[in-house]
């Protein structure tokens, strides 16, 4: 058999036959999840198609994260329909309002394992590659189809090898590394491809940083993005009382990559993605004059404990600038609890920040933190497309948690190293 990439190996198992890049195959996933903004549509499709029983409810999960708590009768009805559906079909993995973002919960509770193929009706499912899991998004009908039939077609992606060298400098975050890739290679670097992050730089990146890089893989167009399993992955699962197969997510020696790219982590500076595209990237320093109205710290990209630490470190003993509001949305209830124990939430509140319910928060502009006409937001989230935060007449700058917090303090875009 030809040497395989991680993606080819996982899909070979999921297809039950040997596969290689660009094959179109039928696969059975290990898990198939949905989030609240899609559950109503899935239920409707099943009603229309006459689907009354699900063959594997234990492989399904439903997460209330995109508009939690609900802001409208329509959104609340999606949640209640999801609860009834979960109860009727014996779906035990139902995550209530306030538990947090699906991808965060999947990794912090060990719901997914290295080497698994996992779908979720959310584009940022690529985040799961931080633990060597093939995570990828599906649309609503596709998810409904998988729940009903257990199978769906996939194209086996070619893989781009992104070799990481060196170590991030103080004040520079994994988010800046994502933005550096977008700056150099654009938002179409990996369209329909998988990414493997490899090289000596990986050993300096913890699970949180790996999640950020895999999360933003989809902004590079990727279908999925991986870190191979290593001692950091093993330590994560050991902390959960779980053991993993270290070989579950490893490429074969000699695997064929569509492209090889090198990123020197030590050369990266704090960056921002300017409106309205993720690859419109400039140094934070060069955007210094841009005044902001809102700072958002949260999302599946940067709402983790490490991100709250970075922001709290900046905010300690300081005040958020007059006229600026800062929203802090922990990625999960666990993150919130840990941040409370460490005093991070207290520090940020003392600086004038506003705490919101764990979940997706302001990222998609679906239920809170929507921007006003002409307003500017600096955000630790992953997308700055026009209209993303609920208003087409607003501007979004994407940045690291530290840059987001530093900008909240000064009231304009600020390189956190200059504060």
């Amino acid at each position, binding site marked *: 058999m030809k040497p395989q990439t991680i993606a080819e190996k996982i899909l070979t198992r999921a297809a039950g036959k040997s596969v290689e890049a660009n094959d179109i195959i039928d696969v059975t996933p290990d898990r198939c999840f949905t989030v609240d903004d899609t559950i*109503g549509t899935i239920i409707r499709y099943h009603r229309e*198609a006459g689907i009354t029983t699900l063959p594997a409810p234990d492989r399904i999960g439903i997460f209330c994260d995109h508009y939690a708590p609900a802001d409208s009768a329509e959104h609340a009805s999606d949640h209640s329909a999801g609860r009834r559906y979960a109860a009727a079909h014996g779906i035990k993995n139902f995550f209530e309002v306030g538990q947090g973002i699906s991808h965060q919960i999947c990794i912090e509770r060990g719901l997914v394992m290295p080497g698994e193929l996992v779908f979720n009706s*959310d584009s940022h499912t690529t985040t799961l590659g931080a633990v060597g899991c093939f995570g990828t998004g599906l649309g609503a009908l*596709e998810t409904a*189809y998988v729940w009903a*039939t257990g199978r769906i077609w996939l194209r086996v992606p070619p893989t781009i090898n992104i070799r990481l060298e060196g170590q991030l400098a103080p004040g520079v975050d994994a988010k800046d590394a994502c933005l550096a890739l977008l700056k150099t290679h654009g938002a179409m670097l990996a369209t329909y491809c998988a990414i493997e992050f490899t090289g000596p730089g990986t050993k300096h990146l913890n699970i949180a940083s790996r999640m950020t890089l895999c999360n933003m893989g989809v902004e590079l*167009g990727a279908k999925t993005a991986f870190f191979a399993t290593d001692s950091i992955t093993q330590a994560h699962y050991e902390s959960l009382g779980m053991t993993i197969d270290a070989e579950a997510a490893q490429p074969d020696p000699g695997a064929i990559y569509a492209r090889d790219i090198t990123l020197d982590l030590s050369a990266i500076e704090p960056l921002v993605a300017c409106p309205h595209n993720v690859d419109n990237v400039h140094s934070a320093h060069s955007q210094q004059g841009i005044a902001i109205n809102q700072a958002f710290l949260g999302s599946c990209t940067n709402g983790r404990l490490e991100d709250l630490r970075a922001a709290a470190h900046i905010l300690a003993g300081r005040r958020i600038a007059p006229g600026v509001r800062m929203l802090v949305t922990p990625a999960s209830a666990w993150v919130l609890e840990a941040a409370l124990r460490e005093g991070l939430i207290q520090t940020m509140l003392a600086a004038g920040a506003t705490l919101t319910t764990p979940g997706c928060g302001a990222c*998609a502009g*679906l239920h809170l933190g929507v921007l006003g006409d002409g307003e500017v937001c600096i955000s630790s989230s992953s997308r700055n497309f026009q209209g993303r935060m609920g208003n087409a007449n607003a501007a979004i700058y994407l940045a690291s948690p530290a840059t987001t917090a530093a900008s909240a303090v000064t009231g304009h875009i600020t390189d956190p190293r200059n504060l």
Partner: protein
Amino acid sequence: MRIAGMMRVIGDEISSDLLYPGRYLTISDRAEQAKHALEGLGPTWPGRLAGITILGAGWNLGCGSSREQAATALQAAGIRLVIARSASRLFFRNCINNGLPIITCETLGAALNDESWMEADLAQGTATYAGQSYLFPPLPKTLLDIVNDGGLLKRMERQKEGLLF
């Protein structure tokens, strides 16, 4: 499968937020979805799809979220074929699996003009456009079969007996 009709052309990097703004995600009625297709580009855009059969686009069409309304709203608005220089994976899948054929072709995508007539044969990979003939990679048979079946919903209706994980 042959498709012919008038084309409307949009630009590069038209994200799912522009194709279908998030505030309309709770709308399930397809006819209502159609009223908001392309609304992120401006309030006049949904009306500009009247009488249009083919949507042309530049690079990275549908980048961003997994929302399938980006595809189904276009379909409900009367679009029967999408042609782009390139498309995001999720938008591509949402089109095919909802029975809306999509062609990604750099050369054909680069040649498109607004309000022009096109005829395309999806199985052959040929298009006639502005007096010229073009070749594009035909859709793989597996995907063309899904489109011909009317999408995964029709398949799910037919296949509901005897399925298992």
